[in-house]
């Protein structure tokens, strides 16, 4: 059946700047904010905006993401007509299959899926941002401007502008130039990586781009510049609100900490724009006799008997009596045993910090950073993981 607008979510990125956290899962499947995974934000935004057809383009380590998305039931995207669909690269008959060469090529390879719904517009999303946004408002802007492409932008400081793709616009917010990470930005409108295209136009440019052998088949590098050069109507849609790219260890840690500040992040208690997640099905959290938990988020299935400050704890975490956790993110199933200290650190799923061990340290020194313990990795009793370290193999108890 025809749909006015469908969404295509680019979820194939390797997320290599998250290092150990994405060694076994795709970036959009990385846990976030106590209860969620990154992909919950764009998926919930879609369903809250009335978009009921979403293609999720996967490529890199897709198993966990596939089983997480499943049939889309947690997001109300289990539909007879539309719904959420995982789209891996595939082989057409008589041809040689290829991996997605770039973001634009990923969409090109799935034109057949898009055309099943004969949409007027296609919304392109990525799976590495934390924000709440009504795409219906953005689509209304796109239609009002009669644009070929609308790019959602965020006003950043001029200093930050050097780190983003910057849109230079006229007095009507029509884009006349796009600059990737300019040294001397002319505007402070940063692209959020969210695009709406009039499908007939995008289709044309995807075909042309695919035919160009020198192209890297990327939206930012190829499609947007080509459309600008051809004089297509491109408009900026200004977004006001919280938006954070969580593509690096530091930004992922920051974005989790933002949830602790009053009004510092997206409002997760707002029932008018809920963020849905696949439920873990765990009992309530238990606070032991000696628990001291302040300024922190704690999730079901956890058992806390130690001290927890300024931290985000996911489900089924254990913090034993005499253990201390500060300014840290403990992903599902992480364990901190008695007498251990975890500060300014990220413990991935089922990581364990044994008795008396130390992970991370408060800011200071030349080579300081967030310490990371990868999924399933154990820090043996009494061992130390220094700041900024990325522990990907067990640290065994030292022999005496």
């Amino acid at each position, binding site marked *: 059946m025809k749909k006015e607008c469908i969404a295509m979510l680019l979820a194939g990125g390797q997320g290599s700047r998250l290092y150990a956290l994405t060694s076994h899962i795709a970036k959009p499947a990385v846990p976030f904010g106590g209860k969620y995974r990154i992909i919950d934000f764009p998926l919930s935004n879609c369903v809250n905006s009335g978009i009921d057809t979403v293609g999720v383009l996967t490529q890199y380590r897709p198993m966990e993401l596939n089983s997480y998305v499943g049939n889309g039931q947690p997001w109300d995207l289990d539909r007879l007509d539309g719904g959420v669909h995982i789209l891996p690269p595939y082989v057409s008959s008589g041809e040689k299959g290829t991996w997605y060469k770039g973001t634009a090529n990923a969409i090109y390879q799935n034109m057949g899926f898009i055309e099943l719904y004969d949409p007027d517009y296609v919304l392109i999303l990525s799976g590495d941002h934390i924000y709440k946004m009504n795409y219906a408002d953005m689509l209304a802007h796109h239609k009002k401007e009669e644009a070929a492409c609308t790019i959602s932008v965020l006003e950043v400081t001029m200093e930050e502008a050097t780190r983003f793709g910057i849109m230079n616009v006229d007095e009507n917010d029509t884009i006349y130039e796009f600059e990737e990470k300019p040294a001397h930005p002319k505007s402070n409108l940063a692209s959020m990586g969210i695009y709406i295209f009039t499908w007939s136009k995008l289709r044309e440019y995807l075909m042309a781009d695919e035919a160009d052998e020198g192209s890297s088949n990327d939206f930012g590098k190829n499609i947007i510049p080509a459309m600008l050069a051809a004089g297509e109507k491109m408009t900026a849609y200004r977004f006001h609100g919280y938006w954070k790219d969580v593509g690096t260890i530091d930004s992922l840690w920051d974005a989790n900490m933002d949830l602790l500040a009053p009004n510092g992040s997206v409002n997760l208690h707002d029932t008018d724009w809920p963020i849905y997640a696949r439920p873990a099905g765990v009992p309530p959290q238990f606070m032991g006799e000696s628990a001291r*938990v302040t300024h922190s988020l704690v*999730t079901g299935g956890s058992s806390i008997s130690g001290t927890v400050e300024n931290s985000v704890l996911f489900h089924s975490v254990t913090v034993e009596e005499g253990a201390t956790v500060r300014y840290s993110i403990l992903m599902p199933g992480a364990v901190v045993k008695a007498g251990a200290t975890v500060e300014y650190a990220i413990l991935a799923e089922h990581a364990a910090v044994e008795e008396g061990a130390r992970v991370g340290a408060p800011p200071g020194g030349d080579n300081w950073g967030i310490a990371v313990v990868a999924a399933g990795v154990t820090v043996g009793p009494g061992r130390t993981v220094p700041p900024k370290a990325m522990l990907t193999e067990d640290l065994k108890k030292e022999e005496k």
Partner: protein
Amino acid sequence: MNDLHGILFAYRSNPHLRELTQPRNTCSVPFGGRYRLIDFMLSNMVNAGITDIGLIVHESYQSLLDHVGSGKDWDLSRKHGGLRILPPFSFAEQNGEYRGALEALSSVSSYLQNIRQEYVILAGGDVIVNLPVSDVFQHHLDSGADITAVCTSRSTGSDPRETIYCTVGANGLITDAAVHPNQPEGCECLQIYIMSKSLLMSLVEHCASHGVTSFSRGVLQGMAHTLRISPYLFQGYAARTHSVRQYFEKSMDLLDPAVRADLFDPRLPIRTKDQSNPSTYYGPDAAAVDSLVADGCIIEGEVDHSILFRGVRVAKGAKVSHCVLMQGSYVGENSTLSYVIGDKNVRVRSNRTLMGHSTYPLAIPKNTEI
């Protein structure tokens, strides 16, 4: 395991639960921070691979229907089978609630005829237990008994006058039952039974034509010598709540790690309706100890020895101890609550003091503002 069909009885509203059953059926009484009583037996059945479950309801079942919905939170929203809600459909001549399980079953006899499995498990929807139903079924098949009755040697602590006790004879079979005696005698029966569909059908027919409405009186007592009724002795935690005080005590049992380990075995999860709550936030001055806290709460005051359901807010300076606060309730700044059961959406404004006692916890009805 597709050979077992589940029937859950959810037709009673226990009047001794007073405020807690005013707006709802006993089976939909909230329990344990995020559950309703029905979740336990419903999950036990699903965990044993049961795909078809009939839920027999009679009165004030709106809250129960709202909770179970299509059954999708238990993976029971199925094209074929799944969860079926069974209101009375051949019971027009009677007023008041069903007088017993057999009367309830006979009023849904056309549903029973269409059961596609060979065996049926019958259970009350208000038992708080994590029962390995697969083991009970295996016991039933191995023992060759006509009926298996789940019993416990460990008292559930419920009032004997609300309880059924079984006497086990030398041959290991149940020889007699005491229904609602003054004193406990023998082992306590959890009123969970497995039998073949054909036996169930004939029992229902026989009892309907003889005016027998109660399963325990008609079958456990009346047929103990004609049928082979085998006890399955369950050793884990099991509880029922027949009064407000018992509800409070059973809630507080959950603060015991051994009880939680029994009830919340990760291999046999208790499922419930998902509400998409965020994690619970503990403020800079929060102090929560010895408590079970569900997701979606905002805790800025002190909480001790309490059970907090989803979305509860405890404001700064508030002190909550020995309380059960249900979904969405709110305790204002500097208010003090002890031995209080606050039903859903109870709002206690600032600077209030509410005290109950361990022998008489103060139950505040749903939506009350104080």
